[in-house]
């Protein structure tokens, strides 16, 4: 299926717009460029609305009702109509889908009123008449769209927001898994298996009815009824036990997961404690260091004086004069009661009197005093050594504070990762719960096995009783009923074999295709060897060393997830039972340059028709060169010069046209 023309009328910002979007085999890309908030996403949702009505609007952030998309200016002017129309080509035939509402004049700011009846029409373009195959009611027409074109839940793999597709790399939601099964056609087969089980029951009941009708053995018939009742009851018991086992397994899985998180959390708590202890020791060191610094600051006046002391220390003392020397010597000999003079003469009374006259009233020499004082201070305080101590103490102080800071940051980081987890009480509690869940699994499992064995016994007994009744009856009708019953069983087994064969054939093919696309798109090709898909449709990235990581853990950036998701969608597209256009809003989001180039080179391969709605920052003129050979048409959405609230779509002049 491809879209040939899009026409919108009074939808969002668009009073009216018609754009041909048909493509050829060689040129299969349509580019539509628009700055943000001009009407790009409005156009995207117009297409989804045309196909699916209100359901198509569900994925929008806040506008989920069709009336919220009616052009306000048009409604303010008067009564009118809003519609979106797609002309499509499907399996060689052309159709036109038109969907919309009549609305009433509504003042700006009020909720726009419609006539409440959505108009949906599918025209056969060959004759311009409504398509009879689609029926008369909107529900049958919608069924036609779902079955013939692209079903709604599968459309998420065809029409998507480039930034939003990261969710496919998260743990797949049930709805996504179901959609995947439907895309691949497995859903049809599993439905068939279920329905045939029911059909089998019908034929079994038919046979049983015939058996009872044709037999005259009332006693045996009664036994048969009783055993069949037991069989039904036993099947209920089995269903219940099966459910219990599944529930217990689920519970155990949950506890195991919680335990894992808590154990990891506990490791973090232990690490945090180690860091906290180290910090306490550091704080003690800091306190000691600060005491040392305080003490050294206490002598900082001497340290600041030290250069001056050095200078003074280098000064020369004025040598004493002869008189000063004689005076000093005489005084010394007198004070010490010398018997002999330094010249060797005996000191008698006469000489003593001469010596006393020599003693001068000497004035102290301040320069000499200062110098000698400074010498003694230097010798006592050792200022150079203290300066060196001060340097070390300051460096230690900075180092210790730095380490304390680093540790505090680490503790903060751990705390932010730990809210509500890992308390000492949690882990034993969870282990206990996990163990009990395991016990339940074993217990219910055992009961289930016993119940199944019992059922087999009942069925054996039923078989014997039926044989007994059959042997007494000679009836073609009964034989036919029995053969039909066996025939249905054979058909059921064939369907199961089909399912298994399809899984075994297609899943590896899908996996390989997704892997190949992924490796084409990815940046660091040596790091990865591909993608695996498990039975639950969860994707994992395969590393060069063989390890596997769920894709939601693979790359923290949405860019990396976008690559994985695109590869997955490309795979599903290829394998889908439906073909259709791929329409991408915001294709390149926040990707780096290499990923962007890889994706741009790949997009044209995604489908027979690819429509890309982009902003100028995502695909600039240089990027367009990559797409040059594939673009059929290039449009731009602009506002009207005199009416900035309204939008129009015009051909875009770019480097590639």
């Amino acid at each position, binding site marked *: 299926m491809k879209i040939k023309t899009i026409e919108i009328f009074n939808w969002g910002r668009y009073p009216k717009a018609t754009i041909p979007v048909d493509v050829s085999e060689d040129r299969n890309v349509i580019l539509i460029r628009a700055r943000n908030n001009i009407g790009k996403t409005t156009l995207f949702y117009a297409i989804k609305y045309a196909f699916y009505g209100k359901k198509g609007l569900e994925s929008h952030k806040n506008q989920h009702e069709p009336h919220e998309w009616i052009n306000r200016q048009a409604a303010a002017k008067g009564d009118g109509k809003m519609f979106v129309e797609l002309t499509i080509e499907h399996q060689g035939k052309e159709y036109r889908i038109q969907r919309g509402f009549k609305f009433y004049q509504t003042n700006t700011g009020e909720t726009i009123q419609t006539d409440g009846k959505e108009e949906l029409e599918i025209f056969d373009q060959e004759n311009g008449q409504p398509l009879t195959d689609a029926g008369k009611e909107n529900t049958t027409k919608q*069924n036609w769209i*779902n*079955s013939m074109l692209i*079903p*709604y839940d599968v459309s998420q793999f065809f029409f998507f927001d480039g930034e939003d597709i990261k969710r496919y790399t998260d743990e797949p939601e049930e709805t996504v898994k179901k959609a995947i099964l*439907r895309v*691949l*056609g497995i*859903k*049809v*087969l599993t*439905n*068939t298996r279920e*329905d*045939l089980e*029911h*059909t089998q029951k*019908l*034929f079994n009941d038919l046979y049983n009815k015939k058996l009872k009708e044709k037999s005259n053995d009332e006693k045996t018939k009664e036994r048969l009824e009783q055993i069949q009742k037991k069989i039904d009851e036993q099947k209920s018991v089995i269903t219940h036990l099966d459910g219990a086992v599944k529930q217990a397994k689920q519970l155990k899985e949950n506890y195991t997961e919680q335990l894992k998180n808590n154990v990891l959390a506990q490791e973090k708590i232990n690490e945090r404690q180690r860091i906290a202890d180290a910090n306490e020791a550091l704080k003690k060191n800091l306190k000691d260091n600060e005491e040392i610094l305080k003490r050294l600051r206490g002598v900082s006046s001497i340290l600041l004086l030290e250069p001056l002391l050095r200078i003074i220390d280098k000064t020369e003392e004025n040598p004493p004069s002869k008189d000063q020397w004689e005076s000093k010597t005489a005084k010394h000999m007198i004070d010490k009661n010398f018997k002999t003079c330094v010249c060797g003469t005996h000191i008698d009374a006469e000489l003593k009197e001469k010596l006393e006259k020599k003693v001068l009233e000497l004035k102290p020499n301040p320069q000499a005093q200062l110098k000698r004082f400074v010498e003694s201070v230097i010798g006592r305080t050792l200022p150079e050594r203290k300066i060196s101590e001060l340097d070390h103490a300051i460096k230690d102080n900075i180092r210790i504070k730095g380490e304390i800071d680093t540790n505090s940051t680490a503790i903060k980081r751990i705390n932010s990762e730990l809210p509500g987890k890992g308390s000492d009480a949690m882990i034993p509690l969870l282990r206990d719960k996990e163990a009990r869940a395991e016990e339940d699994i074993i217990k219910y499992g055992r009961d289930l096995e016993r119940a199944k064995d019992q059922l087999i016994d009942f069925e054996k007994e039923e078989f014997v009783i039926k044989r007994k009744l059959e042997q007494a009856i000679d009836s073609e009708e009964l034989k036919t009923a029995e*053969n*039909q019953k066996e*025939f*249905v069983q*054979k*058909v059921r*087994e*064939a*369907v199961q*074999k*089909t399912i298994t*064969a*399809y899984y075994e*054939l*297609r899943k590896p093919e899908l996996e390989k295709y997704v892997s190949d696309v992924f490796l084409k798109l990815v940046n660091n090709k040596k790091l990865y060897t591909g993608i695996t898909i498990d039975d639950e449709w969860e994707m994992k990235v395969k590393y060069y060393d063989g390890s596997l990581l769920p894709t939601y853990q693979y790359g923290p950036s949405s860019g990396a997830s976008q690559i994985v998701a695109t590869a997955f969608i490309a795979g599903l597209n*290829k*394998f*889908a*039972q*439906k*073909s259709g256009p791929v329409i991408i809003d915001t294709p390149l989001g926040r990707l780096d340059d290499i990923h962007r180039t890889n994706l741009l080179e790949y997009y044209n391969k995604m489908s027979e028709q690819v429509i890309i709605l982009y902003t100028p920052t995502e695909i600039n003129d240089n990027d367009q060169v990559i797409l040059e050979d594939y673009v059929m048409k290039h449009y731009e959405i602009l506002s009207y010069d005199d009416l900035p609230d309204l939008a129009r779509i015009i051909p875009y002049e770019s480097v590639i046209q």
Partner: protein
Amino acid sequence: MTEAGDKIIEIIEKIEKEEKLPKGILKAIYDEELIQVHKDIRTNSVEKPLREIIVKYFEMSNED
């Protein structure tokens, strides 16, 4: 029909042969189910057509 759909048909036809079922029965059932799968809520409306297919092909297999 897409390549994926073709593959399913291929497998179905192969299994039909292997299991010696009347030719076309599995495809007939599959086509019937295909119509239903796109409905939002599955109903039991496939019950009657399925039964009719079974009976029809059963009779065909008896004639062979």
